[in-house]
């Protein structure tokens, strides 16, 4: 669902800087726009930017299970929260989420 967002974040248009306390900022290098990320947001973006062999969808699924366990909430709930966050991020970055393309 988030391949294009992941590709955008992995491109040289954005810089993701972790600040040492679990939080981070995403900087758009074209206009220096800054998006602050809290600890969960930092992990989600880190997961998206991860260049491992697994697919973006697999990594997001895995993260939603981890967050579900950490916060003692249903996996479905953590997945909804992650989707909401990523859709909001895509809007901020003017990147159309793949899910939108698929449903249109």
């Amino acid at each position, binding site marked *: 669902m988030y391949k294009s967002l992941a590709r955008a974040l992995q491109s040289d248009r954005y810089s993701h800087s*972790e*600040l040492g*306390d679990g*939080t981070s*900022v995403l900087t758009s290098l074209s206009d220096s726009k*800054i998006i*602050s990320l*809290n600890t969960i947001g930092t992990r989600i973006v880190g997961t998206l930017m991860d260049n491992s062999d697994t697919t973006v969808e697999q990594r997001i699924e895995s993260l939603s299970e981890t967050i579900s366990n950490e916060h003692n909430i249903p996996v479905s709930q953590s997945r909804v929260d992650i989707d909401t966050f990523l859709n909001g991020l895509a809007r901020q970055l003017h990147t159309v989420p793949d899910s939108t393309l698929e449903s249109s």
Partner: protein
Amino acid sequence: MDLPDNSIPYLTAHWNLPSNVSKRLYHHLDLDARWFPSIDITAAESFNPQLLCDEFMLTDSAVARGQDKCHELLSEDSARKTTTPYTLEVFDTRSRATLSQAALRMPTLEKIYTGPAPGQIYNLAIVKFKSNQSARLWLSSVIPAGSNYYLNMLRIPLAHAAATQGSALLHSALVEHEGIGTLLPGAAFSGKSTIAAFAMLTGAKLIGDDLILVSTDGESASTARSFRRTLLLRERTHHSLPDSLRAHAKATSVSGTTKYAYDRKKLGRLTGIESKVQRIVLPSISTSLLKNAQYGYQLRRVSKATVVQHLVHSLDSSVLMPGLQSEKTRVTAGLLNLVAGTPCMAVQMDSRFLDAPAQNCQRLLDDIASIPHTVQGVCA
């Protein structure tokens, strides 16, 4: 009180300024050439744009006509002169618009020093970059003459020049307590000047209360220094200071509000010129009484991402001028490094802070100094 004349190393020798302007800058600014080693600053007290072009006014159509006239004048000049041309960009500091760009020979600039025509007074500053043979000329028709006249006239070009060298001009106070420099970035009425002023009563050094230049990369990274020589305090803070300090203040009107201007030179060793940023604390004022805040303040952890947002918002608006993207990117990256390597907190103060300001400020600064350098902020 000991008030040594040369306690603050103001330097003007490297500044290429008309003597009358140089003298007044010396009086108003905390600047020295180390911060701008690659540029000359040329400034004029006032500027009659009619000497550069007949109808150089701040409207689109007139600017277009003005540009034509400007080019005409420059063509005449280039026919006569053989000196190296500079690229000149003209900005309106009010609209942040680029008014014109033109190749220009520096002798042409001398023409604008001849004085204003009646009713046509513009403030002017020129930053000439030695490195790439370019210059930027900044016009403002809106900055009124007054105690901040020279500061405001040069603030935007100097902030820009700082950005080209990786330094950020921030709306911030800076105090040094027990050798630890604490940056207090914040908007108006956030309490930064209050902390800075009362820090003087605690043995801490006040470096600046409003505008601070922070070097964000290179060997001098995290070194910060004051930008303005005069401290401007609001009435309540002023009246809370002891008579011995208030004696050095002059009432002045700033944007319709009475403030009290303190000459740092007269405050002597209570102030300093430079410090290393080792803590960043975001100040704010609470209009209601804080719970569990016996001394009128609460110090709490804050996420570093929040601090970055705060610092970026505290950047002087000059960094948002057109054509400065690379500088802004560089400064932003530098601020990220600064935040990543510095313990960050937030402090909220209520009216009880001023009940015993010296003692409360002492406690606050002690608390800030006691934050271990390894502490990491947490999500607020």
